[in-house]
């Protein structure tokens, strides 16, 4: 079979999935660009009557969605940085050093992933209330880091294990301290793994709803997913045009994050170093 034909067949086989992925996005885009009276009509059209940006204006000016985005961004970036700051050394220690109870600890991390955050939410609320952190973005940053850290450690650990130990040992013999070898040799090689982990943590934190809803009581502190959920729950109507505009905007940072760091995802960085 020729390469072109194979590729056409592969695309044909994948196209149903493409529809599944694209349909919600197109609906979102189409609805976000329509005026309120255009949404529920007998003759549905994908294209809006005119290219209408009023929904976005209303969202940012009247509903203060910009603040929700900033809150979400602060929390997601904060949670990503905090969980990486802890997970990278933890994963390094678990792969490279003799840690007593290494396997028990690793399994324990996995078990924490089996508990739904919602089960712990009352406990979390009481704890943060005790420390006076309710209505503080910091509380959500800490909670998110704690929840997503176990996954980050697991993911980094499996990536770190693929980096040949010879490289660090060579650096030590060349005169590098353990820390210097870690920073100059080990981390650059782990960058793809760190980036993937960062993306996962960021996306998880960005989309998280229950904890943000519980810990941030003030409207001014709401995150984007929480504010979108509130848009569905207004008293007399569901404002689909605003919801769709908001979800469209909310999906942009994730897409930007993916696009901007995808070059790091290309593996094979360590290719050629050994053998």
């Amino acid at each position, binding site marked *: 079979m020729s390469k072109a034909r194979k590729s056409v067949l592969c695309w044909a086989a994948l196209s149903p999935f493409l529809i599944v992925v694209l349909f919600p996005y197109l609906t979102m885009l189409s609805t976000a660009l329509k005026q309120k009276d255009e949404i529920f009509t007998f003759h549905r059209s994908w294209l809006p009557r005119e290219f209408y940006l009023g929904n976005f204006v209303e969202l940012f000016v009247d509903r203060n969605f910009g603040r929700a985005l900033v809150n979400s961004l602060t929390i997601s970036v904060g949670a990503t940085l905090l969980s990486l700051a802890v997970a990278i050394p933890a994963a390094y220690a678990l792969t490279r050093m003799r840690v007593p109870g290494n396997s028990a600890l690793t399994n324990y991390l996995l078990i924490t992933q089996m508990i739904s955050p919602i089960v712990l939410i009352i406990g979390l609320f009481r704890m943060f209330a005790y420390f006076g952190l309710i209505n503080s973005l910091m509380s959500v940053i800490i909670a998110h880091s704690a929840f997503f850290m176990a996954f980050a450690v697991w993911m980094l650990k499996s990536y770190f294990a693929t980096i040949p130990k010879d*490289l660090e040992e060579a*650096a030590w013999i*060349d*005169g*590098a301290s353990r820390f210097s070898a870690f920073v100059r040799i080990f981390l650059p090689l782990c960058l793809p793994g760190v980036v993937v982990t960062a993306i996962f943590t960021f996306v998880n934190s960005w989309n998280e709803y229950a904890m943000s809803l519980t810990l941030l009581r003030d409207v001014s502190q709401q995150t984007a997913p929480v504010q979108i959920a509130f848009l569905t729950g207004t008293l007399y109507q569901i404002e689909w045009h605003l919801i769709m505009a908001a979800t469209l905007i909310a999906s942009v940072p994730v897409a930007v994050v993916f696009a901007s760091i995808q070059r790091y995802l290309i593996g094979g960085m360590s290719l*050629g170093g050994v*053998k």
Partner: protein
Amino acid sequence: MASIDLVGVSKQFGALSILDDVNISIGDREFVVLVGPSGCGKSTLLRMIAGLEPISDGMIRIDGEVVNHLGPQKRDLAMVFQTYALYPHMTTAQNIGFPLKLRGSSPEQIERSVARVASTLHLETLLDRQPRALSGGQRQRVAMGRAMVREPRAFLFDEPLSNLDAKLRHHMRIELRQLHKSLRATSIYVTHDQIEAMTMADRIVVMNRGKVEQIGTPLELFDRPANTFVAGFLGSPTINFAKGRLSAGSKDVTFDDGIYPLALNGTSDIAAQDVIAGVRPQHIEIVATDVAPLKGTVMLVEHTGCETNVILTVGDCEWTVQTLNRHRLNQGEQVGLKFDPAHLHLFSASSQERIIW
């Protein structure tokens, strides 16, 4: 450059003993090869010298200074790994210059040193390439360059040629040897390849199961192996062994496997005992059956081009004879075998140690 002394060095992993009471003294500017089968502890020993592996017992001295508790950073040794361990995200020049950068040398100084090493190793045109764009032999040379650039007290090599093809290996063997001659650097070289050991070493240390079996120059070890292990390990094809009994005063050997008795010019006062006799394939001649003290039946003839290996049954043993003559022999044919008794190695059957030096 430096001398390295290992005094009673041992290594245990829990109850498992990896190295047991290793004593080796390596002189300044000497090229010592540690050789032995896989798992004999030679690489572990090298890693212990490098400081990558803690030692359980004993002492490692470099230039008289005990370095047991010094980290690999502080021993001032350079090591070339089996896997080369080049930093994949750095170019050739950055790889070679890395040790100098860590020492805080100036960029100009680093550039000068890298250029000097690169010209010695013929790497001038490859300085901007990353390891992935280099061939096996080139990577090997970059790894060498990184070791050479800071003029360490000694070089450690951990099977550096084992990932190269046979031709390149032979070439690199010569290059390494020439490099050692010009640098006059103390070197410890680990390999499982006896040809590498024989051709490169000033002295060879043969190791087996965590113990040193024998230390000596290549020819000493080949001509006077201390025990059956060393005799069997060095030399290709492998030495031929036969069980037998040595008469009192070492006058003759009677073999168990139906081989004719062999007269020896016994001069020593060694008591009669069971022995293992060994003779190298290169020391046996194929002659007419009527003039030969030994007879064998041809099983297989291998022509390698230069030499011919004849595999025969002698009594109940399987022996190999290596000869430069291209004998036309048929399977099942009887041939006579002859060798100078001076080439016979006799080992005690109980201790496996050599009994006549």
